[in-house]
């Protein structure tokens, strides 16, 4: 389990990192926490000859809370997300989801930037970021651009990020109302068999805003437009919840793997989605 040889770089600015990446093209790859990349390098599934370590770049760290919005630096670890008390108040769904990722050791190293940039359908943050309608900030040799989380994922391990771009931060409006991130996994530290993030806002008995996104139920995370349309404006009755749950399951497209056949995954998805919607309503 020893990866192929590479040259190691540890730049201390974003510009410095981009310069190295531009110089070496697809031979270069950035490493954040390494807890997805190193396993892939051990299996020789990731091919690179220049490894650009982002750990020294202070511009990529930190959590900024403004009155209406949250900005999280790409190199913020899951452990830092979980232990940030103010963030837990402003966006408790982040805390609920991050606590269900991997195990303590992995969470000390794994970063939010690596989790969303990786493109593995098993990662939990991409679905969560689609639920929050987050924006990803990408910086490359030609400047800065913003891509919505809902437009970022193209296929497993294929994203809208160009090879020479670095994802520097993630930003979203502070969520209001009820929330839930529900995940079914075989054991602690496992990726989801099925997971769902839900946000619901209620006013005078009516749902004024809803969002639902799924994890590991297709090649990419899925934002469930139809289910959201069913919930929005409704009275959130049991029938509405059932209809929205079915619509979300229908939006999924899981494949068969070691977590089970398609039918089982859809069964698990239905339970997880319903629980997430119900818990979000309770908290709304």
């Amino acid at each position, binding site marked *: *389990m*020893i*990866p*192929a*040889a*590479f*040259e*190691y770089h*540890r730049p201390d600015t974003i510009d410095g990192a981009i310069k190295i990446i531009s110089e070496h093209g697809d031979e270069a790859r950035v*490493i954040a926490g*390494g*807890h997805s990349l*190193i*396993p892939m*390098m*051990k299996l020789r599934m990731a091919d690179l000859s220049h*490894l650009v*370590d982002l*750990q020294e770049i202070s511009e990529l760290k930190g959590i900024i809370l403004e009155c209406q919005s949250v900005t999280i630096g790409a190199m913020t670890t899951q*452990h830092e997300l979980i232990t940030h008390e103010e963030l837990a108040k402003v966006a408790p769904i982040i805390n609920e989801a991050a606590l269900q990722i*991997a*195990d*303590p*050791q*992995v969470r*000390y*190293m794994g970063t939010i930037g690596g989790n969303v940039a990786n493109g593995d359908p098993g990662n939990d943050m991409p679905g969560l970021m689609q639920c929050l309608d987050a924006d990803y900030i990408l910086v490359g040799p030609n400047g800065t651009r913003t891509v919505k989380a809902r437009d970022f994922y193209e296929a497993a391990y294929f994203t809208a990020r160009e090879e020479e771009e670095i994802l520097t931060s993630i930003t979203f409006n502070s969520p209001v109302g009820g929330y839930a991130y529900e995940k079914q996994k075989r054991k*602690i*530290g496992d990726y989801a068999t099925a997971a769902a993030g839900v946000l619901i806002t209620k006013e005078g008995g009516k749902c004024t805003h809803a969002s639902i996104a799924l994890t590991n139920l297709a090649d990419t995370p899925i934002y469930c437009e139809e289910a959201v349309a069913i919930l929005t404006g409704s009275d959130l009755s049991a029938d509405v919840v059932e209809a929205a749950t079915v619509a979300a399951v229908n939006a999924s497209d899981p494949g068969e793997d070691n977590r089970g056949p398609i039918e089982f995954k859809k069964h698990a998805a239905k339970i997880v989605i319903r629980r997430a919607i119900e818990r979000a309503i309770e908290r709304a």
Partner: protein
Amino acid sequence: MSKMHIKMKVNGEEVETLAEPRELLIHVLRERLDITGPHIGCETSHCGACTIDMDGKSVKSCTVFAAQANGKDITTIEGLGDPDNLHILQEMFKEHHGLQCGFCTPGMITRAHRLLQENPNPTEDEVRFGMAGNICRCTGYQNIVKSILAAANEMNAAKEAAQ
């Protein structure tokens, strides 16, 4: 590919070694620095036997490149206690049968040490959640949890007595 100089503080001592950037930290510790406390169970980030403390974080050293660890402050089980002077966690694992074969124990204790630094007074549930990255094939965990809770009590009592 050429080797690089890796400088780290390991168990309080400045060390320097030559290693290829791709070498895993666990291999550098065990094979170049002769620090064989941290074990290799799975080498795939799953078992926690290789857990060390790096800059105040519990880390699986089979999933860190030597190059990434350059400049870091590392503590392994060797830095916590020795046979003549056991750490309180080691003593409690001994007293409460927190180990059988002992293969997982260095990782367990190194992880438990960090857990108790962050949460000196954990509930049983918090211990189980905080130890979820460490696998034991012998004990069934019950006595590991007991040992850690007992160590927390002892450490708190010692702290109080000192005040």
